């Protein structure tokens, strides 16, 4: 069994969930999201986020506005949509369930 592979599969699944959590707290730029993830000990390369965020946006969970920047090109400023909030709730419940199962098995 390839432990690294399994771990990575685990984390892949809930990266989106974590992103939504961060955006729920406050609307952010990509760099802020990375910081948020880092503070939760989830280190990703920036490149991971771009496809992820675009996917979530295309699914209607996120929206963005262009923010002008003094240092370079305008940046996307992401925030949760209503749908996004709803999904977040659902995911929260799913997560608790999973967590309970694991705890139960660990006893």
């Amino acid at each position, binding site marked *: 069994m390839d432990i*690294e592979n399994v771990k*990575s599969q685990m984390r892949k699944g809930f990266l989106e969930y974590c992103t939504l959590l961060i955006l729920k707290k406050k609307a952010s730029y990509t760099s802020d999201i990375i910081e948020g993830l880092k503070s939760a000990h989830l*280190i990703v390369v920036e490149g991971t986020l771009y496809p992820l965020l*675009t996917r979530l946006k295309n699914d209607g969970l996120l929206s963005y506005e262009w923010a002008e920047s003094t240092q370079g090109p305008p940046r996307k400023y992401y925030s949760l949509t209503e749908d996004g909030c709803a999904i977040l709730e659902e995911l929260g419940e799913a997560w608790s369930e999973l967590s309970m199962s694991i705890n139960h098995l660990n006893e």
Partner: protein
Amino acid sequence: MKKTLSVNLGGSVYHIDDDAYQELMDYLQDVKRHLGDEASSEEVLNDIEQRISELFSQWMQGRREVITRADVQKVIDVLGRPEQYDSAEGEPKEEGQRTESQREDSAHSSGQPHRRLYRDPENAILGGVCSGLAVYLNISVVLVRVLYSLLIWFGGTGFLFYFLCWIIIPEARTAAQRLEMQGEDVTIENIEKKVREEYGKVKDRVDGYVSSNNFQKNMYSAGNGFTEVVRVCLKIFLIFLAGIIGLAGVSVLVALIVSLIALWTGSIHIASPWMLDMVPLQDMIANPMSTTWLSVGFLLAFGIPFVALFRLLFGRTLNLKPAPKWEIWVGSIFWFIGIGLCTFFGIDLISSFGGVWL
């Protein structure tokens, strides 16, 4: 000193080194390939370009003017290589990514068991022995090659060893073998991924090359080079020809001169109808001077046109200066004189003979 290009990243203009541009291009193409054909991939690419542009303008900050390879490398570190997407790991992988051999979208996983030694045809210079070895040991190809060349230097048995390896070690021809070489699992999906990767790489490389200036420049200079060679060959041939003809002409002139001298010194004898012995030609002729003049006439009448013709034909090839007007005039006048002499003294000579025999 390096050549730079101007590049448009997300709406801003940057100066970027030639080699840095190449590396950035390759990286962006890797990303593009990784993202596939989804509708959203263009948007994602734009986002990434924007981010790169942002990073560059931060780092330039008015102090520097040009983006270097180091900057591009930093960007790649920050944004991560496409293989590192979708995985939240402890640390983004560093080793095995920046092999000097070429830009590689190689999914080198360290520590994978069951790596097999193959010859690597993709990065091969001769037979792929060194590159295969490098992949197997997961070290830089350049290192292997350097070590190998040192080996050769200190005892030429290296050559034999190389050929032995070439014969013995199999070439990683199929995709499955290539995966084994890099120690990845030979699964259907890996194979598919690898084949697609390689196809994409080759396609991009060819597209890039064909559409780049280099291709046209190379074609142009190749074409030029060829016509140059033909031109030079032609020139050599003409010079050769000129030499031969010139030699022939000179020898004719020399013959003329020699005969003139012979005539004059009386060494040509001719049978005389009323004497029993051979007499020198000179004595047979009423006016000995006429032969001299005749010879001079011959020289002029033949020599001058010859020189003129020679000049005409080979002047270009031999880079002779075109004859100035006065030379042409003088030459023509002397030629006429020559013709006149020939005619006059020729008739004189014939008549003197005719007088004897008729």
